[in-house]
């Protein structure tokens, strides 16, 4: 769930927009560059975007008795690098803000920062760390996608706690309260997102082994053979 329209004080709204903008610009550059060099990867980029579209439309029930949705940014970050997901996430968030009154234009910057910057960068870092520690491809993908999902909502909690510190306990108390809503609800959903990302990655590794090998993501993908 994203921060609702109008629910960040104006200076926070502007600040997060300024913080998110360079990442979106960097992402557009990096995506353009990659598509120029490897036009055959255009469709795969579409898959990464489509995956985010699907997952962020699925509102799932959680053990806390409320609903939230996954983000789907881990897959694209692992395939195309962390910056590529910033513009893609921005498109998804804009769609939901304009048509669904979910999230908002004034909170777009903050929501881009949590979902399309922190999430993908976390996914990218965790994936490569796990691979370096010799975790299997599936385990690395799972950890990257699920922790990116969780950290997105931890970021949302930080953003709200910063804007609305508790009158008695300040930032920390407020953060724990918001995290109790967002992050705890997100734990089973993050696991689901990790599992779903492994599923789609398995399918890609079967039918697009050559591309994944070329991209250096799955050097040992064998495909159908």
């Amino acid at each position, binding site marked *: 769930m994203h921060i609702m329209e109008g*629910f960040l004080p104006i200076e926070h709204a502007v600040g997060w927009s300024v913080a998110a903008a360079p990442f979106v610009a960097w992402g557009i550059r990096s995506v353009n560059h990659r598509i120029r060099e490897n036009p055959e990867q255009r*469709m795969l980029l579409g898959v990464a975007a489509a*995956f985010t579209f*699907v997952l962020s*439309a699925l509102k799932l029930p959680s053990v806390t008795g409320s609903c939230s949705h996954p983000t789907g940014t881990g897959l694209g970050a692992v395939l195309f690098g962390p910056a590529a997901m910033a513009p893609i996430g921005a498109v998804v968030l804009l769609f939901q803000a304009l048509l669904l009154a979910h999230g908002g234009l004034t909170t777009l910057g903050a929501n881009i920062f949590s979902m399309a910057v922190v999430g993908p960068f976390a996914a990218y870092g965790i994936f490569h760390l796990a691979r370096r520690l010799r975790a299997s491809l599936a385990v690395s993908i799972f950890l990257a996608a699920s922790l990116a999902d969780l950290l997105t909502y931890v970021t949302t909690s930080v953003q709200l706690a910063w804007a609305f510190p508790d009158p008695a306990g300040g930032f920390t108390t407020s953060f724990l309260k918001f995290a109790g809503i967002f992050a705890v609800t997100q734990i089973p959903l993050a696991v689901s997102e990790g599992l779903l990302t492994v599923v789609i990655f398995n*399918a890609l590794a079967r*039918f697009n082994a050559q591309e994944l090998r070329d991209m250096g993501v799955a050097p040992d993908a064998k495909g159908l053979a």
Partner: protein
Amino acid sequence: MKRYPNLILLALVALLSALPLWLVERPEGGDIFGGADNQAQALIGQIAPDYAPWFQPLLEPASGEIASLLFALQAAMGAGFIGYYLGCARTREKLRREQAEAADRNTAAKDTRAD
């Protein structure tokens, strides 16, 4: 056999999504499984009772039904594209393999004739 891991993973996701429906008790007279963002909105109201949102959504879905229509549309577009791509990729991989096998057979046939 290769399909099994994915089926198991999908079953796990279904289980994870369905279990809360049994595990969580409906609070007395309260709503259950509302959006986490509505809870956050209520919490902001507790922490900063004086805060008033300074901007309203430009367009709001006319009802819950319309909202679910748009969410379903969003998911359908994404899933449709992924399905199309996987179908293309699968066929391409199959043709590639058949071609390679046919080429293998040809060279094998030539080899026997040469002997």
